[in-house]
């Protein structure tokens, strides 16, 4: 029993940290640029596909990771300069449509290059083992522990960046009041490009890391997009701290909720307990978001004054 709970808690932590990687980029783009980017999930997907491609040429997993991240960050920067900087000045409706268009283009492009079947990334040998926890009760995959470690490291890194550096100060200023920040002399355009590229890099990291665990397919972007949006609404748009807390909250509720619901359904011999449990857990998260919007419309840690 304890082993099951520990296992699911660790899974929840892992999911939450990966969600944080996406949410962090999304909340910054949203907060600073006031831009709805539905294509954020597509960057995650592209990162995963690039990792899959690179893994054919390079054996070293670390190299594959770095290349995938760099390539996606570059793509992000290019997209920002070519498209997003114009979108910033348009209505939300236009942003929704344009980024929706990008999803269509990205999905179809990946299908054209990689085919319609999901692509597998081989897990590196050295990381494919398990570790014993709780005595010998639980065998937990090393790889997942690695993901947790990377997630925590990135969270610390982002914390330092945003709170302890000058660049971070500019980002926070931009998130809380972009017009004021511009008048105070902060060079907004390069800052936006950087923030966007950073978001893309984080997405790619998550995508490349999760690649060996899940299959890489078109549509993986969409399935993580809505939870990511829910996270930043719960946490507060523009707030890094909010994204972190929100992501962990959502990750835990989704995973542990799934456990609780599925067990309950199994106990009452409901057919299709597993799917029902999973979807109801997701609904719980949606309901949480709706609830938060009702009582704290700006989220748990609003960035805007």
């Amino acid at each position, binding site marked *: 029993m304890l082993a099951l709970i520990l296992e699911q808690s660790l899974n929840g932590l892992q999911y939450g940290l990966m969600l944080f990687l996406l949410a962090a980029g999304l909340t910054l783009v949203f907060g600073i640029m006031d831009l*709805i980017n539905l294509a954020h999930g597509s960057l995650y997907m592209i990162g995963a596909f690039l990792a899959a491609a690179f893994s054919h040429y390079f054996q070293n997993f670390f190299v594959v990771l770095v290349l995938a991240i760099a390539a996606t960050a570059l793509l992000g920067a290019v997209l920002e300069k070519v498209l997003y900087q114009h979108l910033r000045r348009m209505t939300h409706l236009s942003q*929704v449509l344009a980024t929706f268009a*990008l999803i269509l283009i990205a999905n179809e492009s990946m299908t054209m290059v990689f085919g319609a079947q999901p692509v597998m990334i081989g897990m590196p040998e050295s990381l494919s083992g398990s570790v014993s926890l709780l005595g010998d009760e639980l065998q937990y995959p090393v790889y997942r522990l690695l993901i947790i470690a990377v997630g925590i490291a990135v969270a610390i890194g982002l914390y330092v960046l945003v709170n302890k550096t000058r660049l971070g100060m500019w980002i926070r200023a931009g998130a809380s009041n972009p017009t004021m920040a511009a008048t105070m002399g902060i060079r907004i355009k390069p800052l936006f490009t950087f923030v966007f590229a950073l978001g893309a890099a984080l997405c790619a990291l998550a995508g490349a890391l999760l690649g060996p665990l899940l299959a890489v397919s078109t549509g993986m972007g969409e399935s993580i997009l809505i939870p990511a949006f829910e996270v930043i609404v719960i946490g507060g748009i523009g707030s890094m701290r909010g994204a972190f807390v929100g992501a962990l909250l959502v990750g835990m509720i989704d995973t542990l909720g799934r456990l609780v619901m599925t067990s309950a359904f199994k106990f009452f011999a409901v057919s299709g307990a597993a799917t029902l449990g999973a979807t109801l857990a997701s609904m719980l998260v*949606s309901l949480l978001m709706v609830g938060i*919007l009702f009582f704290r419309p700006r989220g748990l840690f609003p960035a805007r004054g």
Partner: protein
Amino acid sequence: MAPRLIPAHRPETPLTAGLPGPWTAIAIAIVLAAYPLLMRELGEDFYITLGSRVLILALAASALNLALGYGGMISLGHAAFLGAGAYTVAALAGQGINSAWIAVPAAVAIAGLAAFLVGAVSLRTKGVYFIMITLAFAQLFYYLAVSLPVFGGDDGLQLTERSNVPGIKLENDLAFYYFVLFTAGLAFVLLYRLVSSRFGRALLAIRENERRVAAVGYPVFRLKLMAFTLSGGLAGLAGALLANLSMGVTPHTLAWQQSGLLMVMVVIGGSGYFWGGITGAAIFLLLEEAVSTHTEHWNLVLGVLLLIIVMVAPNGVMSLRERVISQFRRKSTQ
């Protein structure tokens, strides 16, 4: 229909652009009525079914146009109401209730109720939060459709026969087309009444400047909620027709990407213009048909086209017509 009471010297503004002229409506009605007969003559029966599909989606897009184009509410969850209508018809059929007199109004009522509940919560938020909360609600409905066994899970629900209208066999594609045309026509007459009324003008004003509308004493929240509910109900009507067309419904109908496509149709046609929904749906579906025969990468083409439209003509095809007309007028006065 009442004649346009707007004298020639008044400039065209968003208020007047939202209204149709009666002659256009009559012309369209004649074309649509003659269309399937022409197709039958040419031996292209497939196009009759396509025509039904266009009409149904035109209705769905126009329903969204009411909320989005007229009311300014960017709802990324309207597919949920479309789906609610479709599932109602399919679920009732599963219980042996096939009569169109029951199934269709039930679909409208259920979809309208869903829209009322979603709107009551969502409309308390604004801007990006509203967009996202509609997205979240759409997901909620999707999860319900996928997970509850009564809705058939991933496979959805099948119809063994089309809804029962006394005296007409809807299994006949031609008869079905006219049924759809008739129903959609009624819906458009209703829409026309709506947008020409005090309610309609208040809605347009809300889109133009919500703060000012509140400041002169309109109960803005209730007006938006009413528009959202009506919009959902109309989408439900389209859903009922869609279930009949496809002989069933799957959860795919409720996917948020479907809401995105509806939005695309509205914007292509022209958000806030009366004929925007129809124009958009027609252009979209015909383009899809045409492109799909040459390549399986229609989504790519659509994506690129959409990007171009957003950058070049964000107000849709109908707005281009305006730009062309005003260019014309400028040239003639010079």
